[in-house]
């Protein structure tokens, strides 16, 4: 159950941070730090609000996933890419090694791996490729429609 919460929370935090960063033009640092601040303050003042496990993990997941949302829009072009990177981060976080427990920057490393892996999927990382894909699909659809109309007209004649 806790793993599902981590996955959903990391994907949604990554999307919220990206919206704050790109759409509301708050910049990457403020977008990430503000969300982490809200999560940190909630669990600092209400530590027993949720179970001990969740109170420990939620702030860490929020700050880690917020690093994904700091990505610039020419690196990960669409929200789907951000969601997939968020889910990947959640997956890495859920299985993260105890060996690197307490190392500063470990969450950032997990976030960076998630973003870089998503960038290997071309349709998530490049707006241009997606646009070319959509154009090709449109051309294919319209061409087939035109051909059908042409055939119908010829048959009617």
């Amino acid at each position, binding site marked *: 159950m806790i793993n599902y919460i981590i996955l959903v929370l990391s994907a949604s935090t990554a999307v919220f941070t990206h919206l704050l960063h790109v759409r509301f033009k708050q*910049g990457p*640092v403020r977008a990430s730090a503000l969300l982490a*601040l809200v999560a940190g303050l909630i669990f600092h003042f209400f530590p027993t609000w949720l179970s001990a496990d969740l109170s420990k993990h939620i702030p860490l997941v929020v*700050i880690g996933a917020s690093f994904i949302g*700091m990505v610039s829009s020419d690196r990960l072009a669409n929200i789907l890419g951000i969601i997939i990177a968020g889910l990947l981060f959640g997956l890495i976080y859920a*299985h993260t090694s105890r060996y690197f427990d307490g190392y500063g920057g470990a969450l950032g490393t997990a*976030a*960076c*791996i998630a973003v870089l892996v998503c960038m*290997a999927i071309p349709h998530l990382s490049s707006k241009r490729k997606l646009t070319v894909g959509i154009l090709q699909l449109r051309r294919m659809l319209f061409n087939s429609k035109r051909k059908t109309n042409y055939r119908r007209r010829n048959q009617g004649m």
Partner: protein
Amino acid sequence: MKNGVHYSIIVLLFFIQALFLYSIFRENNRSYMVSITLLSLTILLLYTYMKVQLHEEHQEYESLKVALWVPIGAICSYYLNQVLQLGPVLAAALVGTIASFLPNLRPRSVYLQKLPVAIYCGAFVGMSSPKIAAGPGFILAASMFTAIFLIVSKSIMQGVGGKLGTLAFLGVTITYFLLYFFDGA
């Protein structure tokens, strides 16, 4: 020389990320699903490093005046985290939020625009737990390494989320292993 530094930092970044994934594999190697997922992640990661345009072709260096803010961010975050016992998340988030408002002091200043990134990068170093970072000396040393990596990685992975965290992780890991090596020797 510039190319040598450029490629060394790229190799170092890939190495530390591969090591991070390998440490997960070592603890979860009984599960086939986790092992296959980690192998796929490593292959895709390598593919991105080799095929995707991640880095600028010309090597650029960040200014030393900007990088000096990394240790300042790290010490502030360390103080909030370990001395005031606010915890790593609240400490880094507070430092990052305050840093993000610094450019508002003089919106036309190019220098002030660059500070939030350096301070937030330092704040990640300060998130280290007491069992890793025993005192401010460790944080200062780790943040110095991180500042050097920030200087030389200006044209590497620009705009990639998590880059600052990876630099901080590199700084902390190198400091920890150097201390371990010299203490052990």
